[in-house]
């Protein structure tokens, strides 16, 4: 039975570069996928595009492509990535430019557009999954992008693209696309599509299945995390999958690492909603079949819903934050005194806030007082964060913390303060007919 090899070259926008180079050089890959868009990334990219119409794609695009294109060209490995973010056309042109610079004449780069549905839904009263409607967000909306499926990626590969650049696509679709293209799976072969989504879901976070985000010394030890190898999926025509990594790289592929990633960000395992299929992971089984080799089977699927999820980015005020540290005996008490001082100051000065948090990092910042158990830490770090409407009010939060230097408890040091505009994400569902994708091809 025919098998293709797909590597995951990045699991998030800031991921390491070298593991993808190792895969491109030594992985004997048919495809190399870079998944670089988190929920909010595209809204931030849209802001960058509004400031400069040539921007709005992933800032590491050119660096990543420069690093892997020569080896991919040499080995016949095709690349699929969502690094186009808010501007896939500009991104594809940049990849073409990189290819020209590297002397890779004839390299074909496809841009998939059409996920941007802002114009199509603007002014509507589309229901938001979080409650309320689009109209409530009014003039604060920055972006609206639909999670597109594998279809346009398959088209791009059929058109001979060596590199396919998308904006918002469902993460697993970046992997499902090449599988459909390679094996000719039918659009309603729900079982195969479900298995393809399973492969994509397992691989899309790159190092998270090869031992990254897994180590817990003494309980779950993983060697070589500084040289973590990224995963390779060997997918056969019937959808069966073996997850592995390059020999000599750090990390580990075990049934445990695969199970953790299988359930990562999954709600109901029977219904993992994707644009192309409702994938069913509930009967998936994993077994070790060799060193750093795990076989995965039992994926399934049911007919897609015909609805696409849309992420709506909107400006949601500002967050101001300040931090300061205390150490030695009495550190917690001085930290608590400092928190009370800032609390009283914010009330006295009347800073308009809609939400505020007072944390002691090292004591209760992550999980609150109820789950924090005894023991006096050597050092603590006070953290105050508040939501305000205006940036000028957010500035006051950090300033009040900074003023603890000369007005607060003894021995406070290492102040940091920040103000950031919040771009929040709301979600909605739209009929797939609302989204029309287009393909543009650029040749180096």
């Amino acid at each position: 039975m025919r098998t293709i090899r797909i590597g995951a070259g990045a699991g998030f926008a800031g991921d390491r570069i070298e593991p993808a180079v190792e895969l491109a050089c030594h992985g004997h890959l048919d495809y190399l996928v870079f998944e670089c868009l988190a929920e909010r990334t595209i809204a931030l990219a849209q802001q960058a595009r509004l400031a400069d119409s040539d921007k709005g794609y992933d800032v590491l695009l050119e660096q990543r492509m420069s690093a892997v294109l020569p080896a991919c060209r040499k080995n016949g490995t095709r690349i699929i990535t969502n690094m186009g973010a808010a501007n896939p056309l500009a991104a594809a042109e940049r990849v073409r430019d990189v290819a020209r610079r590297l002397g890779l004449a004839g390299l074909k780069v496809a841009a998939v557009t059409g996920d941007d549905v802002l114009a199509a839904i603007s002014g509507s009263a589309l229901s938001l999954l979080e409650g309320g409607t689009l109209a409530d967000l009014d003039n604060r909306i920055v972006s609206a992008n639909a999670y597109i499926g594998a279809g346009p990626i398959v088209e791009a590969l059929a058109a001979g693209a060596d590199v396919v650049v998308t904006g918002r696509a469902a993460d697993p679709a970046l992997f499902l696309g090449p599988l459909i293209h390679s094996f000719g799976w039918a659009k309603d072969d729900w079982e195969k599509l479900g298995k393809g989504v399973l492969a994509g879901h397992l691989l899309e976070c790159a190092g998270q299945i090869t031992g990254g985000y897994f180590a817990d010394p003494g309980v779950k030890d993983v060697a070589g995390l500084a040289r973590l190898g990224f995963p390779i999926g060997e997918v056969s025509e019937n959808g069966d999958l073996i997850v592995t990594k390059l020999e000599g790289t750090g990390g580990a592929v075990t049934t445990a690492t695969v199970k953790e990633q299988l359930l990562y960000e999954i709600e109901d395992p029977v219904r993992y909603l994707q644009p192309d299929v409702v994938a069913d992971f509930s009967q998936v089984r994993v077994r070790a079949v060799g060193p750093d080799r795990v076989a995965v089977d039992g994926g399934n699927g049911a007919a897609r819903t015909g609805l696409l999820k849309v992420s709506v980015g909107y400006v949601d005020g500002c967050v101001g934050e300040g931090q300061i540290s205390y150490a030695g005996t009495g550190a917690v008490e001085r930290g608590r005194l400092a928190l009370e001082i800032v609390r009283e100051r914010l009330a006295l000065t009347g800073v308009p806030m809609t939400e505020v948090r007072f944390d002691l990092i090292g004591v209760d910042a992550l999980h609150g007082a109820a789950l924090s158990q005894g023991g006096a830490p050597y050092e603590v770090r006070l953290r105050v964060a508040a939501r305000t409407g205006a940036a000028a009010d957010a500035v006051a939060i950090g300033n009040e913390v900074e003023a603890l230097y000369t007005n607060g408890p003894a021995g406070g040091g290492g102040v940091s303060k920040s103000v950031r505009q919040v771009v929040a994400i709301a979600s909605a569902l739209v009929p797939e007919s609302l989204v029309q994708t287009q393909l543009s091809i650029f040749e180096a």
Partner: protein
Amino acid sequence: MKLRQIAHSRTGDKGNVSTISVIAFDEADYPLIAEQITAARVAAHFAGIVTGPVTRYELPQLGALNFVMKGALGGGVTRSLALDAHGKSLSSALLDLDLTAPEHPEGGKARQGKS
């Protein structure tokens, strides 16, 4: 015995929803975990953090449970004021839950008294 001794866990996030897996190191320990780590128990453990319902999904062939906690992330990853806006550290809190070892050890690690 802590859950951490016989199971591992990973947290994920989608909007204001936190998902936490609990996976037995040894699948023979799954029945013990499934019996004691109920949705109600997880909801109580995270009462100060999670504002919505907690749902448990069972995957016995993997020796795993998957908990879905609504209203867990301070309004959502993109809005939250929390230090750990994604709630990624919640798995470590869950693994601190106590388990009562069975009286007649047999089967998995917990039952062999190796912990």
